[in-house]
């Protein structure tokens, strides 16, 4: 004789990180902003005048230029639940091409558009493989990561091209109209506005969030998933190429190994900005804060002669914090809310 009785007062599970929850996102942004202020405070107090000097501000910003620029399109890609690890290699390839074309007597005014197109094509290849063949972008871009870097060496081999016209290189490390803002960073600011509008205020942006969260449902709502994804990769390629140009000018040098390994820092910045690696969640402001945070912190630490290895550790820890922070606080709140620790519904962990 089996007999099951229930007498229950059930409260509904609120999956704490379900959905594009403004409040929670806001929370994480405020955290990054807070951390940023902390970093500045730290820098200011430990090495005051040096840190606050205009020249230093300048070097903070210019150090981040390429990372910041590439982080913009990559944010969109990751919100769309894809990833592009080949960005740094595209950067390398394009600056190598600049050197090559320059050596072959091209005019810089011709070279720049040319390499931007090449970058777009590189992105297009990623896009085709991901959208047409339906390959996982992680795998694809690991492949192109190797291939584009390889092509950079094919193009320029062991040469370093360093005789770019001074009017360009001077722009590269010059500052904007008397301010201490480096020219490359101005490029970033302009792009940032554009990308912000696109991601957060237009239909394309809405579609990107939707397909990031549930591609099939987006398709059933008439969102041109494949097309948008394809163009996201193209844009990312082109912007990475732009970053390549900036890089070549900023360092007055084109080499096949330009920007090697940069991709990890860029991904780190985007994720640190609170963008979900599963797609469908994120905010560009968060990413920008994260970028400034990373730059400021690294600078403040180097000013205090903290060694490179510790910097690596700091970068990593920040990244861990960026995901642990929200999740842990959420679960603590959950536990407090319902006196007895209830297992919150599992959030799938995906690659």
């Amino acid at each position: 004789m089996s007999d099951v009785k229930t007498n229950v007062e059930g409260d509904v599970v609120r999956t704490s990180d379900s959905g594009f929850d403004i409040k929670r996102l806001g929370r994480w942004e405020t955290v990054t902003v807070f951390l940023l202020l902390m970093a500045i405070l730290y820098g200011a107090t430990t090495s005051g005048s040096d840190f606050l000097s205009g020249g230093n501000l300048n070097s903070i910003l210019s150090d981040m230029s390429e990372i910041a620029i590439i982080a913009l399109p990559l944010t969109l890609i990751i919100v769309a639940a894809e990833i592009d690890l080949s960005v740094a290699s595209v950067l390398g390839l394009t600056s190598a091409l600049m050197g090559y074309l320059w050596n072959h007597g091209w005019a810089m005014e011709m070279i720049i558009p040319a390499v931007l197109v090449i970058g777009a094509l590189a992105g297009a290849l990623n896009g085709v493989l991901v959208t047409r063949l339906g390959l996982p972008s992680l795998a694809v871009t690991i492949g192109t990561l190797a291939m584009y870097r390889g092509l950079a060496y094919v193009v320029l081999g062991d040469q370093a091209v360093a005789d770019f016209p001074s009017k360009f290189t001077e722009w590269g490390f010059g500052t904007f109209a008397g301010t201490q803002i480096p020219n490359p960073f101005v490029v970033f600011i302009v792009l940032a506005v554009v990308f912000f509008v696109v991601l957060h205020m237009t239909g394309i942006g809405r579609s990107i969030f939707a397909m990031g969260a549930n591609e099939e449902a987006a398709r059933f709502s008439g969102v041109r998933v494949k097309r948008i994804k394809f163009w996201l990769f193209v844009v990312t390629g082109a912007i990475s190429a732009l970053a390549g140009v900036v890089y070549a000018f900023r360092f007055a040098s084109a080499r096949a190994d330009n920007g090697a390994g940069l991709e990890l820092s860029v991904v780190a910045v985007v994720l640190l900005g609170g963008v979900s690696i599963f797609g469908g969640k994120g905010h560009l402001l968060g990413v920008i804060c994260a970028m400034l945070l990373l730059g400021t912190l690294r600078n403040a630490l180097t000013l205090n002669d903290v060694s490179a290895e510790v910097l690596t550790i700091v970068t990593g820890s920040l990244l861990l914090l960026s995901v642990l922070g929200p999740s842990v606080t959420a679960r603590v709140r959950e536990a407090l809310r319902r006196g007895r620790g209830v297992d919150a519904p599992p959030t799938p962990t995906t690659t």
Partner: protein
Amino acid sequence: MRASRNVSIALRSGEVRALAGENGAGKSTIVRMLAGVQRPDEGDVLVDGEVKAFHGPADARDAGVAVIYQEPTLFPDLSIAENVMMGRHPLGSGRRIDFKALNRTVKELLDRLGVKLDPEQPVKGLSIADQQIVEIAKALSFDARVLIMDEPTAALSGHEVDRLFNVVRTLKERGAAVLFISHRLDEIFTICDTVTVLRDGEVTHDGRTAEMDTDELVRRMVGRELSNLFPKVDAEIGESVLQVERLTREGVFVDISFEVRRGEIVALAGLVGAGRSEVARAIFGIDKPDAGTVTVDGRTLKPGSPTGAMKAGIGLVPEDRRQQGLVMELSIERNMGLTRLQALRNKLGVIGMGSEAKLASDWATKLQLKYHKLSDPVGFLSGGNQQKVVLGKWLATSPKVLIIDEPTRGIDVGTKAEVHRLMSELAGQGLAVLMISSELPEVLGMADRVLVMHEGRIARELSREEADEENVVRAATGQVAAA
């Protein structure tokens, strides 16, 4: 907000108890608590009189409670056999899994259910119906003392339901206690001895099914008199809007040709697996057909382009709400806005502040949506209310043709009636409606014309007058040559 309050349910061995209630009444929530997935804030679950604190599904299972959840919970990459016996594989020498034995056991189970499925076949690519069957096999494999089924029949068609009921009866004879949830009231009366009615998380009635009839049950669930379940008003039928010609997709359906006129509701009936959803998908451009054309108002659509179909004025309310209908993580308003992105742009080309919220709240009121905040993830809503959001987001596009696949799958009588009223209203306003449904009463009650599909072909076309249960069933089971 509470999903269920102070509920007491007693399951006696050898008894099948129905748990009835509107969408969002709290049925699934109770199931989740009985299954140990969700911990009640107060109260306990007692098995054989003693209090059991379930810390997880495993505990519930060990206490002899087997559960079929509302949504299939299967492992697509693994074989049917492994899905059924996960974590309980028979072990051979050296604690290694004995796959032969595994497949044998599961084969027997499936035979008991009378379905011909290969245990070694991966669950990937099974139809919703077959997935549901695997779920049932899994629950049965426990020889549980308590079997809880949350809308197991939602995706099943007649004969599969009958098989399921036979199994339930044998279990019942063996002294198991069964809790059965369904929105198909006739099923409740067919299989259940007692019924607990739930409204807004509270028990409003607890009695024997023998002592009540459908109307009373409905009244207790909805809390009000419910007029006609199929309020079909005859709209005057206009010129043809949607023409489908010789549409073919190898292996799924073959030259499907029909038309739908203004103000007309055409039903696509047939057995699960007949390929009706696939026809819908092909018309809307989700899948590219191998041959044939779709024409709306004389404009032939570019195959395989949902955007094109939308522009032409087609809307599709898909069969699988959670996967295809909605982006569960996004808010109600974002989901509503998704089909109107172009229209929501202001002159600057950006989406104006709150324009989505406005759109959403308009439709929410029109459809009497039960919601907390429009900025809540749509996943917080119960099945029925989710369906309303899907309807809303398509009606917002003011389509010429609306394709609705399983309009009331997993939706309670109250909402069902509303949805039906809405459909005939829309038809009345000159909308052409193509309805796919596995529920015969719905088909007969709502359709002006019935197209019956059998194994990928249109077996027969029936006018409202000729359409009766027998004709449809015979056509659906291939007992008539294509008309």
